[in-house]
């Protein structure tokens, strides 16, 4: 190493750390600014009427109830398909899968599912669910599309949570006569539950905020009523925000910020729930 006095080295270190701190601040502050800005601009729009009313006057007045309910439906529908499938796949990978070529292929497939652009999921949903299976532009088609997109998030976080359960738990359970599945259901799943829940919520959070996959599979531009069945199209918060900020001229700015705020609260509420579950479980964990 070249001869540099220790004071110079300390100066370089201080400059370096200062630089890193500055870069981190530049990364983090805009995130907080975005959230604070939307809250401050959007909260004047929030009223009971805004949350519980139907849009009227070409969506330039009234409320956004159909979009809120629609996003709830889509999130629930996504959960219905993605949670059982995703958790089961995670159980397979964590508890059953042998270390062979097929398992590696499954892992590569999961990584690739996670990387596929959301609009390509939209195309796939259009091709398979809307046209081929004839579900039409519907809540069903959109939920199925979103659930496949959510799957990799749920599988990988749930698998990680299952693997974190110490091996000794399994050994003890098996040695007192439980079968493999009984061990998984009563011991491993129970211990891994907070981690799995965190993964599920983070996956659903992403589904709730997505627009591109539902564009051609289930989103309605405007619907004067609530969807009546799984085969109806529905309004949704993210798509509604896109519509009123780009497609409707003379849209009152307050309604736009109000809609953005409701979407943000919806998504960040899920994010916060996940963070709380995780930190609580971590604090309580005894192993």
């Amino acid at each position, binding site marked *: 190493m070249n001869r540099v006095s220790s004071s110079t*080295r*300390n100066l*370089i*270190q201080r400059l*370096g*750390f200062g630089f*890193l*701190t500055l*870069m*981190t601040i*530049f*990364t*983090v502050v805009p*995130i*907080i600014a*975005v959230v604070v*800005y939307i809250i401050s601009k959007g909260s004047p729009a929030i009223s009971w009427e805004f949350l519980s009313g139907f849009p009227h006057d070409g969506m330039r007045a009234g409320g956004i109830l159909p979009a809120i309910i629609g996003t709830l439906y889509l999130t629930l529908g996504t959960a219905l398909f993605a949670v059982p499938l995703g958790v089961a*796949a995670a*159980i*397979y990978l964590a508890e*059953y899968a042998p270390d062979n070529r097929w398992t590696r292929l*499954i892992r*590569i497939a999961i990584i*690739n*599912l996670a990387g*596929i*652009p*959301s*609009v*390509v999921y*939209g*195309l796939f949903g259009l*091709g*398979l669910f809307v046209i*081929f299976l004839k579900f039409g532009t519907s809540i069903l088609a959109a939920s199925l599309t979103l659930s*496949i997109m959510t*799957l*990799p998030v749920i*599988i990988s976080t749930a698998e990680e949570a299952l693997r974190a359960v110490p091996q000794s738990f399994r050994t003890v359970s098996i040695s007192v006569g439980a079968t*493999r*599945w009984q061990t998984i259901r009563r011991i491993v799943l129970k211990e891994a539950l907070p981690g799995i829940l965190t993964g599920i919520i983070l996956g659903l*959070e*992403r589904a709730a*905020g*997505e*627009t*591109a996959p539902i*564009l051609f599979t289930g989103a309605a531009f405007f619907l004067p009523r609530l969807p009546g069945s799984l085969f109806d199209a529905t309004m949704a918060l*993210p*798509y509604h*925000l*896109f519509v009123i*900020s*780009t497609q409707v001229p003379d849209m009152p700015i307050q309604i*736009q910020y109000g809609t953005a705020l409701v979407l*943000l609260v919806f*998504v*960040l509420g899920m*994010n916060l729930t996940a*963070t709380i579950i995780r930190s609580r479980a971590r604090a309580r964990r005894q192993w």
Partner: protein
Amino acid sequence: MEKSLNWREYIITRLIRVSGYSAIVFVAAILYFLLREGLPTLGEVSIRDLLTIRWYPIENYFGILPLLTGSLIITVGAMLIAFPFGIATAVFISEVAPRWVREILKPIVELLAGLPSVVLGFLGILVLSPYLRILLDLPTGLTALAGSILLGGIAVPTIVSIAEDALDSVPRSYREGAWALGATRWQTIWRVTLPAARSGVLTAVMLGIGRAIGETMTVMMVTGNAPVLAITPGSFFSPVRTMTATIAAEMGEVASGSVHYHVLFFIGLVLFLISLAVNIAASSVVFRSKKRAERILS
């Protein structure tokens, strides 16, 4: 009782195994439908016409070069922004910050990952692009630059979390060795920890690229959507249009089975193959480096 238990266990185990393989089925199904709806393009539009610079579907001009270059320039711009900020933040969180700062920073970065892209696009229209227009004295603020800035933000959480994992998994003994030789913490980060985590950092960047090139709503909202060839640095200051935005904007209006419809699926196929390549490259880097680390440690 023994018997019914075994029987149930058998069924459940089977179901779990089938679920385990579902990911492969879905990737295959996605590829199948993209091929099925996208490949007819090659019979309807010649490759030469596809590789032109004119995208004007109403008059049957299906040149996808403007869309390809639009996606590329925005991704390059996004990575120029996301790489330094993402890596610096990852190093800060993993190597410099005290524990309590780390516990605050990580959820905030995760929060960014959860922000719906349509919200960022919305702010891009109302706040960022008017600001850029005035600052840079442009005819419109809806430019590749606005798209790059927002996409950079979207790629940052991906880069931070993967790069931070990579830095975390560098064995502590490496750092202790460097300190014992009298290196400062800064020198250790710069010459030991970062080089040791090199492959993880590379993976982070690749997945960041994948994240950026596939993003749809934000770019559709803030880049102005003009399908013009974007190959000079000056293109950053004019409107462009990406592959993703083209699909999202036009698929709603085309007749199922038309040439335009097939071409949009074809573009989807190109996006799928790009993301496949990026992800396989990224994961092979991880596997290779893991093997190398195992060799060194054993």
